[in-house]
Every structure is written in C-alpha cells, then in structure tokens.
C-alpha cells in the first residue's frame, strides 16, 4: 500500500476511483436534484451554476443522473467480478496446483472458452431470458473466467515449484492448506490486477449493452443508457455525450492504471526489475587517451581500457586500465574467473558492450586505426570484416527463425559485393572449412535442428564469412561436452595455422589456453594481473614460475594441471569481489595467501619482470620499471 502511494499515477487512479464509488453510493445525499425531475424549460442547458454539468433533453440534471446512474453500472461490475473471481481463482489454483489430468481438462476447457464470442453469447442469454440483465451479467462473468484461469494457473505453477511449497508438501501439510496458506497470499497482486481488469471490461460491456437497449429501463438512469440518450441529441448538444462517455472512460482508465501499477509493483518484485534495454549504444564517453603508443607490429592494441556500468546512478568500473596487444597470426588467451571482466574487454574491442556498459577511458587501435567506440557504417565494416566475434552460447547466437544458409550468406554479402549465387557457394565452402559434414543439408537447417557442436562449427564458419584478420572467441568450448571441445579446439588451431588468423580466446579453462594460445593474459577483478608466454606457465614443473599468486592458484585449481595422484584440487578461498567493491590496493590481496602489509598500501602497477612477461604483484616487483598506469 505504501509502495502504491509512491507511484503518483496509480495512487491518483485509486483515489479518483474511490471518490467515484463513494459519490455514487451517496447519490441520494449528494445529488442536487432528483434524477428524474424533468424541467422542459431548462432542457439541454450547458454546464452552469444551477446545473453543474448541464441538463439533458428533458431538462434533467446531468450530475444527479450520473451519480444515480453509476449505481447500476458499478453494481453490475461488482456482480461480474464476484462471479469471475469466484469461479476463476479456485479453478486456476486447482489446475496449477494439482497438475495432471485436472490441469489438462481445465486447460482444454479454457481453450474452448477463450474462443467463445462473449458479446453474442450474452445476446443469446438476453434473448432467452427476456432481457433479464442479472442473468446476462452472470453469463458475462462466466465468459470472463477462461483468461483468469490461465493467469492464476501459471502464477500458481510458479509458486508451486518454489522450495518452501515443496517443503510444506513433503512434510505432509494437506494440499488445501498449502493452497490457502501459502499459494493464495502470493497471488494477491495477480488477483487484484485481474479483478480491476474484469471490472473495467464488465463496465465497458454493460454500458455497451445499455447503449444497445439492454440495460436499466428508462427513466432510471444508467451510464450506458445516458450515452445512448446523448447520441440522440448529439447534433444539439455534444456536451451530453462528453459527460456520459467521459465518466465511463474515466472510471475504466482509473481501473486500468490501478491494475498497471499493482502489476508493476507485485510482478516486478518477484521477477526482478526489468533492466531497460538500450538498443543503440549510449553516447560515447569522452575518452582519456593514455600517452603510450601502440608498439609496431601489433594488429590489435588495447591501451588503458576502462569500462564502467551504471549502478545506482554511479559509474562503477568493471574493467580497469587494461592494456594488451595481439600481433598478426598470434593467438592470445584472456584468462580469468567469471566476473573478472574478460568478456567486457572482448566486447569493447568489437563495440558490442551490453547492459549499459561503456568505455570510460582508453583506446583500441586496430591495424593502426583508432576504432574506439566506432559507430555506423565504419563499425559495420570492422565487425565481421576485420574482427569477427564468436559469442559464448553458440545456439543463442542463431536467429531461431532463419535457416543457416541465408544467415551466413547475409554475413558474406555484408562484406563482399557478390551475387546471391556466389554467396551461397561461399557459404558451402565456409561450412566445409568448419568441417561440417554435409554442408548442403546444414545450410537448409534451422538452428533448432543442429546439435551444440554443429552450432559452434556454424559459428566458426560464420565468423570467417567476412574474411576477418582477428577472431575473438568468447568461451568457445564452455557449452560443449569434452569430445566436441577437443574437436573445436583442433578446428580453431587448424584455421589459425592455415590462414594466419589472429585469435583472442576468452576462457576460464587453462586446457583451452594450453592447446591454443601462444600467450596468456590473466585478469582478476577488472585488471590484468599477469601476462606471459603459455609455455612458461603451463605444465606442472612450471607452476612456480607464474609471477602472480593468483595465476599460481588458478593454475593449481585446474584439473588438467593437477599432479597425478592428487585427490583434491586446491581451491582459491573466498570469492571474486563484485565491481564497486574492489580494494584500492592489490585487488587480490584479501584472498591472497601471501598478502603482506605492503600489498594493502596502494594501487599496484603492472610491471615488466622479464622479456614478454608482466606482473601486478608487489612481491614480484624487482627493480623493474612500472608499465601502464595504476
């Protein structure tokens, strides 16, 4: 309730609604005139002092008639709501909670019920029962049951699968009690929303019926019949129509707004606030460019990259001052636990950051050209044409409604001016290159007809469509089983050897890095902590050679690197801190077994420790010069 008051639209709607209901209920005391008192001398008067809302064609006071006319309208709605909820809520609860045949039968009936044309059925009822409105309203209430059952059922299903309901069931609490004590209270919001919607629909419906002449008998006023009367005198006094239709519209509007607000409050609370999706990239932040230049020979050069996300109106870094280089034909592994920021680095390079993340500082140079935050046609030429990106989930990257052939042909034609026929031919070649058996059949497949391994091979073929020079593969094997993993690794290595493609592999798996990469860049909590040739890190005798304690622990925690006969893998104590909670000093110091007081003094710079090796550990800092900014 207090939450509702914080939403001005919802609160205002509720207040207006209550005022309308109270005013109609108190009509005998509030109405300035009797609703049927005619005064032909004063017919069709506009709003004025004597009649606040004017008079109708018989000179009756509109305000009084609206107040009295609201009573049948609102009471009818109440009746319909009572019937609909009285049947729909128990039926939906039972179907959702019991499941099985009861559920199937209910849903079959609901399917039939949803297809019943309500208005015509109500007319049949009216015709049969000689215009008895009450029976027609009960019929309407029954006709509005099916959609309610559907909604209550799915809500009940969701609650049923929650742990505490399971627990209650296992401990032998009778089902009826579970439903009423545990499930029903959780559905209060949903039921309130549906009650408002049913009330609004029945109000619209009954006023429509009244307009057709099946409503309150004249001279008794009702909102619907008043609208019908107003339509007769529309030419002389349009105001009447505005007043009578306006009150119906206002009431329905308030019910709708109230329902919307309650839905936002209750449903959103359970499913988590929906993050608003930014379709177009947010405006590029003013980028501070660090002074040092890209070394000669680097195909891709990232310098001082800082990526932030918006959290409680504050820019929180998820990547901090990351620099890395990839030479043509080189394969680099970007390693770290989830949450280390490695995917954000990869996505920054191709300009496809998600979830409102943006590049706050730094520079991304590809083949000598600054491509930081590129947009428009230039970005499109870069993506796919120069740098290809394979996202984490191979299946999720495929449009489920598009066949593989046309999808890849589109990628080909985005970067080459070729005929559709030539593009098709190239697609088959690409699929063959990705070692897919029977490329022609695969090209005709929809994504759901592929296996995970095939989808990953398709992703590789797709990445090659624009003849890129750099391939970024984000966890290329994470979603696959072990044998397929090995095949994909072999495929990528083969491609790299044949085409001289540079590859950036983002992975948490040292096995993948060992198989594929020349160099490893280790990230922890948004920073690069170590960089070294893979041959100097991997292999049991080399464990000790990792310069940073985090790298050593990460290597030791990897099953493939454990010494033979080891029964337990060492784990790194603690968890990676969330963005915004990073210590100012060494980010790893709270979890580091070797942490000394010198580790918590201040930011630790990344420094050279040997040829082609860098580390961000105080302990490995010899006399070497710091590299990059802290």
């Amino acid at each position, binding site marked *: 309730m207090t939450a509702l008051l914080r939403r001005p639209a919802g609160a205002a709607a509720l207040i207006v609604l209550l005022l309308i209901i109270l005013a109609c209920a108190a009509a005998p005391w509030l109405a300035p005139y009797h609703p049927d008192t005619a005064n032909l001398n004063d017919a069709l008067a506009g709003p004025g002092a004597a009649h606040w809302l004017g008079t109708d064609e018989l000179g009756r006071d509109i305000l009084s008639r609206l107040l009295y006319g609201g009573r049948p309208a609102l009471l009818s709605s109440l009746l319909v709501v009572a019937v609909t909820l009285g049947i729909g809520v128990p039926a939906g609860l039972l179907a959702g909670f019991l499941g099985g045949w009861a559920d199937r039968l209910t849903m079959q009936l609901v399917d039939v019920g949803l297809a019943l044309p*309500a208005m015509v059925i109500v007319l049949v009822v009216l015709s049969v029962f000689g215009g008895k409105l009450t029976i027609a309203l009960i019929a309407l209430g029954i006709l509005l049951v099916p959609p309610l059952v559907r909604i209550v059922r799915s809500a009940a299903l969701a609650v049923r699968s929650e742990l505490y309901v399971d627990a209650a069931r296992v401990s032998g609490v009778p089902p009826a009690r579970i439903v009423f004590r545990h499930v029903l209270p959780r559905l209060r919001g949903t039921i309130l929303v549906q009650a408002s919607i049913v009330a609004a629909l029945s109000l619209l419906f009954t006023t429509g019926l009244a307009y057709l002449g099946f409503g309150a008998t004249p001279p008794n006023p009702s909102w619907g019949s008043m609208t019908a009367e107003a339509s007769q005198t529309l030419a002389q006094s349009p105001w009447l129509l505005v007043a009578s239709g306006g009150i119906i519209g206002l009431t329905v509007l308030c019910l709708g707004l109230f329902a919307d607000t309650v839905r936002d409050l209750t449903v959103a609370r359970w499913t988590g606030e929906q993050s*608003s999706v930014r379709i177009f990239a947010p405006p590029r932040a003013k980028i501070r460019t660090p002074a040092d230049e890209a070394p000669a020979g680097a195909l891709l050069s990232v310098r001082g990259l800082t990526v932030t996300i918006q959290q409680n109106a504050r820019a929180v870094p998820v990547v901090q001052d990351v620099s890395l280089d990839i030479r043509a034909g080189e394969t680099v592994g970007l390693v770290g636990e989830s949450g280390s920021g490695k995917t954000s680095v990869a996505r920054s390079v191709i300009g496809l950051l998600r979830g409102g993340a943006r590049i706050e500082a730094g520079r991304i140079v590809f083949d000598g050209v600054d491509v930081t935050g590129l947009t428009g046609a230039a970005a499109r030429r870069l993506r796919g044409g120069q740098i*290809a990106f394979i996202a984490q989930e191979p299946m999720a990257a495929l449009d*489920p*409604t598009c066949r593989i052939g046309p999808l890849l042909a589109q990628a080909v034609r985005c970067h080459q001016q070729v005929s559709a026929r030539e593009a098709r031919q190239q697609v088959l070649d690409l699929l063959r290159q990705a070692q897919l058996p029977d490329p022609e059949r695969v090209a005709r497949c929809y994504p759901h007809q592929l296996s995970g391994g095939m989808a990953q091979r398709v992703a590789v073929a797709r990445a090659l469509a624009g003849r890129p020079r750099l391939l970024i593969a984000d966890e290329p094997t994470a979603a696959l089983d072990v044998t397929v993993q090995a095949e994909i690794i072999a495929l990528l290595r083969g491609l790299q050897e044949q085409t001289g493609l540079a590859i950036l592999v983002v992975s948490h798996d040292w096995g993948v890095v060992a198989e594929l990469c020349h160099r490893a860049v280790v990230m922890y909590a948004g920073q690069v902590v170590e960089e070294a040739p893979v041959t100097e890190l991997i292999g049991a005798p080399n464990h000790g050679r990792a310069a940073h304690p985090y790298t050593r622990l990460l290597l030791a925690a990897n099953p493939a690197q454990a010494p033979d006969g080891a029964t337990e893998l060492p784990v790194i104590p603690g968890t990676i801190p969330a963005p915004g909670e990073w210590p100012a000093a060494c980010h790893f110091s709270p979890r580091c077994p070797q942490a000394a007081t010198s580790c918590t003094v201040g930011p630790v710079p990344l420094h050279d420790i040997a040829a082609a090796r860098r580390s961000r550990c105080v302990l490995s800092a010899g006399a070497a010069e710091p590299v990059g900014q802290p």
Partner: protein
Amino acid sequence: MWWLIGRRLILAIPLLFIVSFLSFALVALTPGDPAVSILGSYATPAQDAALDRQLGFNQPVLVQYGHWLARVLHGNLGTSLSSAQAVTTELNSGLGVTLCLVIGATLVTAAGGVALGTLSAIRGGAVGRATDAVAMLGFAIPAFWLGLVLRDLFAVRWHLVPATGYEPFTQSPGGWFRSLILPVATLAAAGMTGIAKQTRDSMRDTLARDYVDALRADGVPEWRIITRHALRNAAIPVVTMLGTFFVGLLGGTVLVESVFALPGLGSMAVTATTEHDLPVIVGAAVYFAVGVVLVNLLVDVIYGWLDPRARVT
C-alpha cells in the same frame, strides 16, 4: 505443421458443439412456452400446442438438439420467427458487411499496431511513454462512444464520409470504401494500441537477445536486423494476441454496426435479441463461432510460418 492444424481442428469440434448446445439448451430452458411468445397472448392453448408440435418444442431437449444438429449439418439453421426467411439466407446477407468490417479492422490493427510498437521499441523514451498513454486511453474509451464521436465529427459536421449505411463493393467501390472508413477506424482504435504495446514489449525482448548482437557482430546494418530478423521473432507472441483480439472484435462489431447502422451480422443479432427471434440469434452465435475457429486456424498457420520450431511435433 499439419499436425498443428489437425489439432486445432479437433479442438474446434467441441467448441462448435459447446456454442451450439449452449445456445440451444438456453433456448430450451426458456421459462414459458415458445409458442406463446410467437403467437402472442391471444392464441388459444390448442393453437399453442399445435405450434409446439409443429416446431418440436414438446420433445426432450436432447432430442430437439439432435434434430437441430442434423439440420445444421445439412446447412439448415431453421427459419426466422420474425421474417419467416431461412436463417442462413438472412444471415448470409449480412455476412459480407461483417466480413469486410472485421477483416479491415484486423488488417489496420495489425499493420498499425506493429509499426507503432516497433517504432516505440526502437526509439524508446517519449514515444514509448506516448504509446503507453494512448494504449491506456484506447482501452478506456468505449468503442461505441468513439464511434459516435467519429460519426458526429467526420460525417455529421464535416461531411467527409456518410454517417450511416453501407454500399456493397459491387455497386460502388468508392462508396463501399467510404462507408467502411469510420467503422473500421472505430474498431481498430482500441485493438491497435493494445497490439502496439505488445509489439513494443516483444520487440524490446527480442532486441536484447544474443542473436541480435551476433548479427551486429556480422556487420549487418541495424535496419536490416530489425526488418529481417527481429520483426519476425517479435511477431510470434503478437500473432497469438491477434487471435484473442479477433474474438473481442466480434463483440465490437455488434456495437459498431449499431452505431453506423450497417446491415451486418451484429446488428441482426441485436434485432433478433429484441424480437426474441431465437433461431436467428442461435444461428448468429454459430456463425461467430465458426469465424473464431477459422481465425484460430489462420493464427496457427501464421505461427507455424513465423516460428519453425512450432512446425515440429
């Protein structure tokens, strides 16, 4: 795909049974003697009984329903009590008007709603909020009221289109079009905003999917991603909604045909209700139910065409 259509057809059979039996049982349950209501209070009891025998009202309900059903299967819905015409003849004369109206309104709703919703999803911000506000208004304004206002403004005051009546297409295509503009606009107004809102939500959801990012990574232009990929995926839930919307539309035609005095099924149903012409009103219910069945079938076909995953099993 065929499996899906078959399943829907099987589902349609109980629907038609329920609608017809409901209507029929209601008629049979009518308090009072039907013959009395037909012949009026001046007929003798013997005359009433004779008519009851003639019309079969003295038999048990299920037997009556069986006879009625057998006739319906032969395309005979009985005879109108007020005009003495065959019910099918009478209703068929109004079918064309109602079909033009609902098909026109569905097309306008779908095209307008999807366009508006897509725009709102892409542009967001003010356009999105405006769509929300208009959608809420479209929900709140009673259809017949909107019809009255449109009729008063465009027909009575500005003489742009005829206020009431219908011209068949065969007589005057221009007149036909002009006589349908306002009714179609009235019917489409409410549904369009609902569809726009649904499209907007669905489109936003689609544009946040991984495969949209993957298409961007391919270097595919944004407009092409939206028109070729996102729209089709986003349309899948919208099409389902269009089916439900159509059922509501049938209710709307009843009111809108009354407002614009169109000689369609809806106004016939209203007249039949006031005149207690039971065969006609039951026949109208059957016509509407068949319409709903056909539209659901069409929705399934479109669904299967849009979503290849729905074609299996």
